[in-house]
């Protein structure tokens, strides 16, 4: 699809990306390259138990000044405050996050408090920071979040039971270390759902209103890699080629949506996570094909581009037909991966759908959706189809 002449965009991808098996052993060198010497590690208990944090601590050697392992799924402001207090006490001059999206986002919040002080509430909104924050090396242990290359932190406001966004060009991590060995132990379902998170990032980035050709290129390559390698990762978790390619896919899908944003799928998935603890990738996976059908009348050409990127036989098909083929391809993929395809299968009560629709309408992602959404009834329609 050609863009109109009025296309304008800003493309940013400031994060250094280091990829390869055993790259994690170079974490100490990366700390030095940031002109730092006191690295504070943020992680969660699962990563500790898997022995992954220990690898990073060893790689840091004397540069390691402390570890916080209290990160949890749906990290909260209180957790960021606690981590920042400990990092400050340890005299940290940089942060190393080891984990999934919640850990990396917690570190982004911690980087803000370490450098700028105050409370995280002070920085809610868009572009509220005016200078670089504490240096941050992100080491993802899942292949989906993309948070290692984005300028957004999602942190839950536990009092309001809603996820909050902090968006700033000063919270891109400085360095992302992608080591396929760190994802080799991920269980199949977690591999599948986090992988579908990456797929959702790529699809929404290409379809969203702020789409641009460079983000498209990243997103399309991510989609190709995910279709080829995610099923391999799920079936044969120790296939390091597949694990590495899926990591790259997740990261470039992150670059894509950092420059184009996400939409209704994420608005709903954030809410499903906040209200009913539906894992983020699982929520995305269920809603994604329904979002394509919902957005069809506004963005069929964008989804047709995706269908072509998927390698589907769209010759002679209309954009609408090609878009439907893309939605069907996603259903086929999630079926193959063994991921539940209905909200009714993942613990969401039917009488909770209206609440989900209501809260999702306030999610920051929704403003970028391919089709403008102003009413809860529109979201409820998507949820009912996905139930």
């Amino acid at each position: 699809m050609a863009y109109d002449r009025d296309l304008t965009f800003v493309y940013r991808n400031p994060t250094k990306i280091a990829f390869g098996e055993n790259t994690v052993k170079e974490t100490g060198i990366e700390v030095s390259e940031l002109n730092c010497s006191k690295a504070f590690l943020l992680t969660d208990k699962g990563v500790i138990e898997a022995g992954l944090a220990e690898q990073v601590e060893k790689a840091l050697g004397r540069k390691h000044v402390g570890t916080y392992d209290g990160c949890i799924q749906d990290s909260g402001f209180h957790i960021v405050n606690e981590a920042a207090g400990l990092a400050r006490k340890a005299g940290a001059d940089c942060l190393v996050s080891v984990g999934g999206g919640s850990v990396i986002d917690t570190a982004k919040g911690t980087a803000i408090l370490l450098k700028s002080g105050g409370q995280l509430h002070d920085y809610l909104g868009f572009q509220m920071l005016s200078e670089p924050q504490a240096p941050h090396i992100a080491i993802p242990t899942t292949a989906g979040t993309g948070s290692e290359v984005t300028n957004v932190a999602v942190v839950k406001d536990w009092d309001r039971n809603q996820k909050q966004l902090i968006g700033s060009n000063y919270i891109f991590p400085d360095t992302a270390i992608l080591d396929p060995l760190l994802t080799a132990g991920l269980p199949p379902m977690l591999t599948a759902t986090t992988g579908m998170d990456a797929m959702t990032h790529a699809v929404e980035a290409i379809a969203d209103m702020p789409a641009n050709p460079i983000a498209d290129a990243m997103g399309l390559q991510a989609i190709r890699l995910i279709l080829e390698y995610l099923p391999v990762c799920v079936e044969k978790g120790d296939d390091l080629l597949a694990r590495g390619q899926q990591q790259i896919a997740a990261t470039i899908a992150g670059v894509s949506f950092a420059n184009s944003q996400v939409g209704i799928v994420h608005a709903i998935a954030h809410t499903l996570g906040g209200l009913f603890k539906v894992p983020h990738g699982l929520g995305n996976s269920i809603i994604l094909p329904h979002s394509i059908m919902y957005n069809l009348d506004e963005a069929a050409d964008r989804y047709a581009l995706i269908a072509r990127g998927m390698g589907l036989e769209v010759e002679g098909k209309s954009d609408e037909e090609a878009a439907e083929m893309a939605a069907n391809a996603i259903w086929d993929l999630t079926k193959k991966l063994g991921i539940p395809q209905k909200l009714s299968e993942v613990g969401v009560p039917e009488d909770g759908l209206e609440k989900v629709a209501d809260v999702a309408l306030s999610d920051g992602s929704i403003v970028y959706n391919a089709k403008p959404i102003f009413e809860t009834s529109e979201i409820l329609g998507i949820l009912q189809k996905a139930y």
Partner: protein
Amino acid sequence: MALQYGSDEWEQAYQEMISERTTSPPPYIYFTPEWVAVYEKTIQEDDAYKEAAKTWEGSVVLHATAEPELGFDGDLYIYMDLWHGECRWAKIVPTEAGEAADFVITGSLERWMQVARKQLDVIKGMMQGKLKLKGDLPTIVRAVKASARLVDLSAEVGGTFPDEISTEQLEELRGQLNPLREKIGF
């Protein structure tokens, strides 16, 4: 010394300033007090805004950072008191009052001129780092339609852009705004 913001004297001085500066008919220069007065009236009379903003509660500030080369030597805070589809009032206020608003959208005067000329979409502008938003995101997200209407109206008000006037007119504007800034405190 500036009058105390919110006092009767301040209100009276502000209204007198508007009366004096609106003796000649529009168009006025963007982001001047008289332009804000017309903007206020335009919002108040707009049915589309009333409908889109019927559930909105809270103050919104359009904050333009100083651009001396365009005649604006200090920051400007256009404060809009918005309540359930009504614009109760819109005025240029002192910094402290502006920063205390529920939502503050900040950009350089040049960026705001791009918005008014419909060359820059506010949402994209925030994403791209051209504009800043301070405030509770979930609340303002629910008011995207109303916010978009406010922006549309800023373009519909019309006016003369500061980069369209001559150097002499620019100096004249500066000469008018600075004494007002001292008296009213903006």
